[in-house]
């Protein structure tokens, strides 16, 4: 009996702590749902943990979607996230494949110049980045965000995928080359399909990071028509210092959380695996 605690007091303590923390995590999500269906009266007179009164105010959601324009913010976020993820995964897979599989001068330098980015605070470059994009007329533009997000996602993805490509068997690559396949064919027809599990892992992490990103989106976009959801939520809350509409605010939180919640339930194992990749040896 190596595992387990015998002392009943400790047993209870451990279990209560775990249940307690689980409640701390789940409960706020429950009242986000409950509170998104209330009107202001219920917030001011009732308690936060009260169930919403009937009839449930589903109109909070339509109000957020239409009146607060979250419908179009959702589209903006979706477009930016999808485009940046596809680009970032493709570009980093190409770079990672070369670093993992080909010897050439400057290979180490290339690899470490990407790794360096992971240690350097984003804030160092944010002011020049704003002016750079401004010069290219890429501020207030979803294309600008796509470029910035793609570039920002490449270093971590390269780091993970280099490790992944190194674990793939080399014989297939050689066999395909002997059969006269071009380098491109070997990559796109043989290596990329083999690397699918790794690609999916980095894609999921990239999707989450971009869907949730706030700092770049705040600095690079001022035009309300181009807001992504995190910026829109922040702006909405900022306006509510003066005129609070709690119900719609919680409905907006759910619009932001919904896709993440679905994504997490579907890919939980891969998400935790992808994020901790490389941090744990063996």
């Amino acid at each position, binding site marked *: 009996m190596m595992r387990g605690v015998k002392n009943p007091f400790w047993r209870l303590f451990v*279990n209560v702590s775990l249940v307690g923390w689980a409640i701390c995590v789940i409960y706020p999500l429950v009242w986000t749902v409950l509170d998104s269906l209330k009107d202001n009266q219920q917030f001011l007179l009732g308690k936060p943990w009260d169930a919403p009164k009937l009839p449930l105010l589903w109109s909070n959601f339509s109000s957020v979607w239409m009146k607060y324009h979250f419908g179009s913010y959702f589209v903006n976020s979706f477009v930016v996230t999808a485009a940046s993820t596809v680009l970032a995964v493709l570009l980093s897979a190409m770079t990672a494949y070369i670093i993992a599989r080909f010897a050439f001068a400057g290979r180490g330098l290339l690899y470490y110049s990407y790794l360096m980015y992971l240690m350097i605070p984003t*804030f160092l*470059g944010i*002011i020049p980045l704003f002016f750079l994009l401004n010069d290219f007329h890429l501020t207030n533009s979803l294309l600008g965000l796509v470029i910035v997000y793609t570039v920002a996602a490449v270093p971590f993805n390269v780091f993970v995928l280099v490790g992944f490509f190194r674990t793939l068997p080399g014989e297939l690559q050689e066999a395909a080359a002997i059969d006269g396949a071009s380098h491109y064919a070997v990559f796109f027809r043989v290596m990329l399909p083999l690397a699918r599990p790794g690609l999916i892992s980095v894609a999921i992490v990239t999707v989450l990071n971009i869907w949730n990103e706030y700092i770049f989106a705040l600095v690079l976009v001022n035009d309300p028509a181009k807001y992504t959801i995190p910026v829109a939520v*922040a702006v909405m809350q900022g306006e509510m210092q003066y005129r609070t509409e709690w119900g719609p605010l919680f409905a907006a939180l759910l619009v932001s959380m919904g896709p993440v919640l679905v994504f997490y339930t579907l890919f939980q194992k891969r998400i935790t695996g992808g994020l901790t990749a490389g941090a744990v040896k063996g």
Partner: protein
Amino acid sequence: MKGNDFAGKSRMKRNLFIASFIVPTLALYAVFAVYPMFKGIYLSLFDWSGGSESYNFIGLGNFKEMLHDDVLPKAIRNDYILVAGKVIGFMILSLFFAVALTRLNVKGSGFYRTVFFFPNVLSVVVVGVLWRYVYNPNVGFLNSFISLFTKQPFDYAWLGGKWSIFALLPPSIWAGIGFSVILLVAGIMSVPESLYESAHLDGATQWQQFWKVTLPLVWEQVQTSVIWIVVTTLNGSFVIVTIMTFEGGADNATQVMGSYLYFNAFKYGKFSYGSAIGVLILVLSLITTVALQRLMKRDAIELS
């Protein structure tokens, strides 16, 4: 001759292939990531407020100005309160949870791992809005709960006081701890069971096993988590601060370096001073990570 020619051709093909795969990405990376960073360091040596007309080299002038800045020390202090609070809070809680979920045979370990990690995939914006509501003086969760036990309705403004930076610690820990739990769980699971068996045979209690076996063998993951906390806090505290306390709280009570940079640059147009703060964030985060790595250095334990 002919063979040589062939080899040369295939070598060229190979090099062209390599170049076509790495150069476009590298070019984008150089322009949109590397160049802005060096430009940030360069700008910090000028007095520049956005236009092209006044572009004066002032050397370390911006850094000298920092010495007379009353807000900056507060911002640095707040960043380090967050770093220290998060390191301590994360490590105690996540070591406890990680051990509980691996060594203590509790039921539902997989469920807890899934749940504990969930806040990590939420946007910090969402986390901030949720917790701002928790702290709301009148309708918020915390005060409503405390009011159940007091005669008068309790209406303390958690985010409005002098020390409200500490109120930002619970949301940060709530939102981030899942990552270090997962990391430590993976570390503990890679410790060979035989080590625990022999510790057990030697009569070591769970508590002794933790100190003598678990902690030394997951020390690498502890280090990784701590460095990760430092880097993400100094770089990312901006978000939780501006979402929960807007412009840095009452009398800059929650101002951090990131938010101070942002307001200097994008609100007051002091772009070069903002860049200098960016350089400061870089220098402090490098010094802190190197110092912590030294401090936490232990002889690596090799398993043979």
